[in-house]
Structure formats: structure tokens, C-alpha cells
């Protein structure tokens, strides 16, 4: 019990004094996950909106696959990205393995289905509500898409934040493709796994506080945005 208390206080102290290692690792985490979230959102939000509006033959199948991909095991994604980027893999020449870029690629693959699925549901609900009105006003296809994206902007932001929340806490894939290299690809989750293994609980706990803080902040944001939406439905 004493060990744990010591760890907690030491970890707290590391956060308060802005320990350089801790700051570096946190910034790397944010850099990787923010980039991954932005890239994934650029792919997923238009795709989700398109999926909600367009009717085509295999639409139901695509939606089912998309929802199934939300549960993609990160470790397996990591393994596949590793194989693709390794020296003998098809993209080996790019030399991306064990770089932040490789971690970003893995996280994009993990969170894109999640963001697209949430965006699709949100846009679909608004489209069901607006359908007759927008047809009646003889809007063009672009006017419809812009209207839906604008009026669904809160829901889309929520989708992006949910993607961020999943990516920031993810460890399996980035451990494999990033390699947890000190001063290069070490992020909050991989560092916690390492420090815990070494028995250095103070740094592990300090990193844990930062990670929890980030996750809680994001979830509070999602909640705040979601509630304003329920209140006013807009």
C-alpha cells in the first residue's frame, strides 16, 4: 500500500513540476492522435454523410461492414500495418516503420470506421427529418449536403471527439508499429505499459493522470455538445 501512495504522490509531483520526459511523451501522444483524428475525420465525415444520402445496391452491406469495423482489434491492425511497412512488405521502401507516421496510419485505420459510423447515424437522422422539405425546395445535391453538414455540425464534432477518445487511449497497434522508442515514438499509453513492467510506478502513474485528464476532458466536451443538441435539437 505504501508503494502505491508513494507512486501516486511522485506521479502527481511529476505532473505539477512539468517533468521534461512527461511533457515530451504527452506532446508526442497529442501530435500522433490529433493528426490521426484530423486525417480520419477528413475521410470519415464526408463518407458518413454520403452514405446517409445516397441509395445504392450494397448500402446496407457497407453499413454493416462499417459497424463491424468499429470493433477492429487494434493489435491486429498494428500487425497488418507492421507487415505492410516492414522492410519486406509492399511499403517497406518508404522506411516508415517505427516512426510517428506509422503510428498515425495505424490510428487512422482504427478510428475512421468509428467516426464514419457515428457521422452516418447523425446525418441519417437529420436527413430523415429534412428529406421532404429539401426535395420540396428543389435543392441541388450540393445544397443538400452542405445543409445537412452545417445543421449536423455538432453531431459531427462529437463523432470526431469520439474518434480522438478512442485513439488517445489505444496501445496495442502503436506499440507494434511505433516500437515505443524513447524520444522518438514513445507515447502515453506505451510508456505506461513499459514503466509498469519495469516497476517504476511514479512515472507510470504521472503519465496515467495526464491520460485520464485528457480522456475526461474530451468526454466532458462530448457530453456538453451532445446536451446542447438534445435541448434545442440543433
Amino acid at each position, binding site marked *: 500500500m505504501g508503494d502505491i501512495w508513494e507512486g501516486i504522490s511522485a506521479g502527481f509531483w511529476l505532473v505539477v513540476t512539468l517533468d521534461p520526459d512527461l511533457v515530451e511523451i504527452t506532446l508526442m501522444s497529442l501530435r500522433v492522435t490529433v493528426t490521426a483524428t484530423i486525417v480520419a475525420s477528413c475521410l470519415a465525415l464526408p463518407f458518413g454523410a454520403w452514405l446517409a444520402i445516397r441509395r445504392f445496391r450494397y448500402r446496407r452491406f457497407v453499413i454493416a461492414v462499417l459497424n463491424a469495423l468499429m470493433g477492429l482489434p487494434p493489435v491486429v491492425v498494428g500487425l497488418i500495418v507492421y507487415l505492410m511497412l516492414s522492410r519486406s512488405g509492399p511499403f517497406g521502401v518508404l522506411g516508415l516503420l517505427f516512426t510517428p507516421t506509422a503510428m498515425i496510419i495505424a490510428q487512422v485505420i482504427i478510428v475512421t470506421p468509428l467516426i464514419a459510423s457515428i457521422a452516418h447515424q447523425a446525418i441519417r437522422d437529420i436527413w430523415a427529418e429534412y428529406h421532404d422539405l429539401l426535395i420540396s*425546395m*428543389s435543392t441541388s445535391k450540393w445544397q443538400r449536403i452542405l*445543409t445537412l453538414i452545417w445543421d449536423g455540425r455538432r453531431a459531427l464534432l462529437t463523432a470526431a471527439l469520439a474518434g480522438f477518445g478512442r485513439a488517445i487511449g489505444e496501445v496495442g497497434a502503436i506499440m507494434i508499429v511505433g516500437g515505443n522508442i524513447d524520444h522518438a515514438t514513445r507515447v502515453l499509453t506505451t510508456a505506461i505499459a513499459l514503466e509498469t513492467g519495469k516497476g517504476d510506478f511514479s512515472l507510470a502513474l504521472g503519465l496515467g493522470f495526464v491520460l485520464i485528464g485528457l480522456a475526461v476532458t474530451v468526454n466532458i466536451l462530448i457530453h456538453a455538445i451532445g446536451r446542447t443538441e438534445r435541448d434545442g*435539437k*440543433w
Partner: protein
Amino acid sequence: MVTPILPLVMSGAVVKRRSKTLLGPVDLTISQSGFTIIMGPNGAGKTTLLRSLHGLERFAQGQQRWQVPLQEARRRQGFVFQSPIMLRRSVLENLIYPLRLRGTKRGRATALARDWAQRVGLDDALDHPAPQLSGGEKQKLALARALIPQPDIVFLDEPCANLDGRATREIETILQKANAAGTRIVMATHNIGQAKRLATDVVFLLNGQIAEQSPAHAFFNTPQTPQAAALLRGDIVE
């Protein structure tokens, strides 16, 4: 001089859903002026007829023709749904929306929107979120939003269902003013009193077909079908 889009001629129109015939065959001409009321029991096809005239339904058979190309005709008509559809925006933004679609500059659109908000008594609520308005306010907003681009013709699907007397009177006043200013109106209603107050001619629907079409005074004084007579007496028509 702008080419009038009316008369609208519908010939042999049939609307089906899952092989069940909802409407038709219907032959109907919407003349250049007047205030047409569509009456008939529930399920007679009032809504389907309005949606067909407006171009929201696909015909299984038959066709309809405006006097101008379809694209232009679509821009020059409006529709008010039975349960108003509010954009998740402010009242002002809802009023501006149809104008912006047509490329009106924001400043001019805002001025017009303020004017219309005043006409329908919503000038105090310009910044309120439209989905939070009361039922009557929503319907007035939907009406103003349909009329603000100055359409040649407006279709209304029981706009006063579920509204109290005051809101109904306000909406009728707006409609009569618009009609006097030259907007053609086609409206479905259950309310016989309202039909008598507003109609210049009546289309009476039964089982998806036009059972009777006559000028208002003729319809209300000497209905040609027993069902219309029963409806006007206040009996239940099935």
C-alpha cells in the same frame, strides 16, 4: 413579363405504393387564379394528391404539365406540410434559407425575412431556435418560409390541423392576403367551416378519385354526390 406557370394540367395520374393504388387515375387542371380546397375523408388521397401536384410523388401512370420547363416550375412553387419541418436553425435563418438557395444576397434576404417575420407575428422570435417554437408558431414560420420567395402557387396540407382558433385565423388571414396578391393556393382541409371561408372552388376526393369538382358555392349548396352531402351535413363519411 414572366411566363405564368399555370394552368397545371394533370392527366391520368396514378400513384401506387407497394401495388396498392393510393391515387387515381386523376385528371385535374389547376387554373391560373383562385383558392382551391381539397376535401375528403381520411385516406381519400388528399395528401397524395397535393404531393403529386407538387412533384414529390412518382406516377405509376399518367403525367402532369406546367406551362414552363419543370426546373423553373419547381422553383416557383411552395409547399407547407401538415407537421411543419423546421431546420435546426434560428427563425431568421429558416426564413432566409429559401432565398439564399435562389442566390439572394444575405443583406436583402435578411431584410425580407424581418418583414415576413413581422407579417406572421414572429418578429420577437427572430433569434429563437425554430424547433423550439410552439405548434402554431412553427406552422406560421413554415407558411412564411413558403411564401417568402413569392411563389406562383403554394400547396398546403391541412396547415391548421391541431391549431387553436386564434392561430387558425392568423394563418387564414395570411393566406387570403397572399391569394389577393396573386398567389395561387391549393389546400387540403378537414374543416368545413374553413373550407367555406376560403374556397373559390372545391375538389372532393373519395378513395383516391375525384368524386366532385365544382365552384365553392355550388359545392356547398348543391353537392352532387351523396358522400359530399353527408360530409357537409356533418355525418361521418367513410
